[in-house]
């Protein structure tokens, strides 16, 4: 069988392997995404401490309150059930459950305590007063002479807010439409089309303005530093791929060199290399990588070193075994007979015959390296923050793991998917190249 024919057979067998094709597609997608990471996700680093841990697909509004401090708030809706959760990030960063009890708000704080905030003039911001209250209706009004506003909120039996309102501006009655966002109302002046944002909750009954309309809708939400998870995920793909490729290269260079030397020359060289490999095998891989990272400190370059140092011993064993098996074969004899040097025999005759196990190992090894890097970064001893590695993204979400699962869940699924893809490809390659390989 000629080389060309063999290659064609291998490709045909590989493409018949459905899972391998799926794996290959995922890997190609990952490569494309990481090549164009800067275009797809231009801004994975900018933090926004006012808009942290926002769940996926939530509309974020930047609102400027009109009080004297001009504080900016980020508001988004959490749920629109009878008991509304609301979250004003920046002001309060925890979920608070509140319920209106006629003339007071009952606020359930996350630590289990309940706080009653009476809806009277004292609890309102300066310039506002309650002008009427009932079980299903309350009204408040600014006492400022410049701007007199009157809102009423009606709750029906289901706790839904009716979507109409009148607003008195400087004594004039203006029709407004408003939309309930759960945490706030968007009030639209019907005539002029001006929009304003009104947060709910007693302490936030301050007139606020939408600064620039709806700001952004982070597809996968934001993390604990208010960074866009989707963008970081894209850049994480690049880092994972980078780690996978560099680590496997380091492991291959060390592993093939030592394995070929040990297998080809035998004798004391073999003994020394094999004993050294045995000792390296005596360290559980991840433990050794952790030790190296503990010594060198967290950095992407150090991750390469740590995982490269861990990755080579299995390659030495594979290559040594192959070389020992192949070096007695006729083609090596023939090469020796025509006076080829050892270096040439190893590089031009032996190595090309060991490509099958090497290719399979590369695929599986990249999967292992990606997983190990994620593990190191999760332990906080991998890449240096704020580099968006998938493992460190999961570490970022660890503190709020049960409250904001979106921060770690998506990177976690992506790691599993990519590792699965490389494993599928590895299995497919093994079946296509040489089903009898034992890796």
């Amino acid at each position, binding site marked *: 069988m000629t080389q060309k024919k063999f290659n064609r057979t291998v490709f045909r067998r590989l493409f018949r392997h459905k899972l391998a094709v799926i794996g290959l597609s995922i890997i190609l997608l990952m490569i494309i995404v990481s090549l164009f990471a800067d275009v797809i996700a231009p801004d994975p680093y900018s933090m926004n401490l006012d808009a942290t841990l926002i769940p996926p697909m939530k509309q974020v509004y930047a609102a400027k309150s009109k009080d004297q401090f001009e504080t900016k708030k980020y508001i988004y809706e959490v749920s629109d059930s009878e008991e509304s959760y609301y979250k004003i990030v920046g002001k309060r960063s925890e979920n608070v459950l509140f319920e209106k009890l006629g003339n007071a708000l009952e606020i359930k704080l996350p630590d289990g305590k309940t706080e009653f905030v009476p809806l009277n003039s004292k609890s309102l911001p300066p310039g506002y007063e309650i002008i009427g209250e009932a079980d299903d209706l309350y009204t408040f009004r600014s006492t400022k002479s410049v701007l007199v506003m009157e809102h009423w909120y009606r709750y029906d039996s289901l706790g839904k807010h009716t979507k109409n309102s009148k607003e008195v501006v400087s004594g004039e009655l203006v029709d407004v439409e408003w939309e309930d966002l759960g945490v706030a109302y968007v009030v639209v002046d019907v005539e002029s089309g001006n929009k304003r944002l009104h947060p709910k909750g007693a302490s936030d009954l301050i007139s606020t303005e939408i600064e620039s309309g709806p700001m952004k809708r982070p597809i996968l939400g934001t993390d604990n530093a208010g960074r866009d998870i989707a963008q970081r995920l894209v850049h994480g793909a690049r880092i994972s791929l980078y780690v996978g490729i560099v680590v496997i290269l380091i492991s291959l260079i060390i592993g093939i060199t030592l394995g070929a030397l040990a297998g080809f020359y035998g004798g004391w060289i073999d003994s020394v290399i094999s004993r050294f490999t045995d000792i390296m095998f*005596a360290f559980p891989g991840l433990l050794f990588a952790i030790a190296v990272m503990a010594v*060198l400190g967290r950095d992407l370059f150090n991750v390469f070193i740590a995982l490269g140092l861990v990755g080579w011993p299995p390659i030495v064993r594979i290559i040594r075994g192959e070389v020992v098996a192949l070096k007695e074969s006729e083609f090596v004899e023939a090469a020796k007979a025509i006076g080829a040097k050892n270096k040439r025999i190893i590089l031009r005759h032996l190595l090309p015959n060991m490509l099958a196990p090497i290719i399979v190992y590369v695929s599986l090894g990249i999967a292992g390296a990606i997983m190990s890097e994620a593990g190191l970064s999760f332990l906080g001893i991998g890449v240096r923050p704020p580099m968006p590695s998938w493992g460190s993204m999961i570490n970022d979400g660890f503190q709020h793991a049960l409250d904001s699962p979106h921060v770690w869940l998506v990177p976690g699924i992506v790691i599993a998917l990519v590792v*699965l893809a490389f494993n599928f490809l590895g299995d497919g390659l093994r079946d296509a190249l040489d089903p009898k390989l034992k890796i």
Partner: protein
Amino acid sequence: MFQYIIKRVIQLIPVIIGITFITFMLFLVVPGDPVRVSLGQHPDPALQERIRHELGMDLPWPVRYGKYLWNAVQGDLGKSIETSEPVTKRILEAFPATLKLATSAMIFAVFFGIPAGIVSATRQYSFADNAFMFMALLGVSTPIFVLGLILQLVFIRYLGVIPGVGYGPGGWASFKHLILPTIALGTIPLAMISRMTRSTLLEQMKSDHVRTARSKGVKEIVVVYKHALKNALIPIVTVIGNYFASLMAGAIITEKVFSWPGLGTTMITAIEKRDMPVVMGVVLFMALVFVVTNLIVDISYAYIDPRVRLK
């Protein structure tokens, strides 16, 4: 048998020396002077020199390695920079928790892995087989920390059947705390054991003695359990043993996810505090446990299968 054990133990000595040497050399190159770090910003040079001398850090490294090895043989792995406690004490305090976690994870993996493998092998390509093998692949590909967090999300937050993470109050009450870390840590060995059981059992089912048993008219169930499984157990035992050893290292991540007070937590805290003697001690200890467990596996393997001894 006795000769084999002696041979294996003697073979282990250079490996153990190698481990201590690599660990020692690794921590010799730590950037940043630990003495200066512990003395604060403006250390007194004389004091610094004295501490350096007391710790033996002014000696050349071969001498220091010799001392380190000699002390390690006597069970002295130095003192923690942070708390001045002996490192050995810290390790022995934390080890039972790790051992408990690793053991229960292994029991979980064996308890579910072998039956799953048997079902897969006896009903090859059935729905159950495909489902088990897909789950095994998924289990191998999901990082422990992701699996651990998903388990926490489901069982602690949504279902509320598990009280929380951590070691628990002790006794039976802490059994519930053990469940989730056990599943998280046990899933990879579970997957490996079920795959191994499936493949070796399938191999055995095609062997001559199974065909003979079948042609004699032995019942299928007896063929599977008595003739095939018994022979298939040898490689399965090896996988179990090898994974038990590497579980200790896998426990580092699991312990962080579940705030489990074992060796991994000790090590990660020590790394954060740059308490190198503790890190070094734990690394050495875990590597030794790994080696010794593998030795026990090899010996029991030789006990089960006499052919191994003769090689």
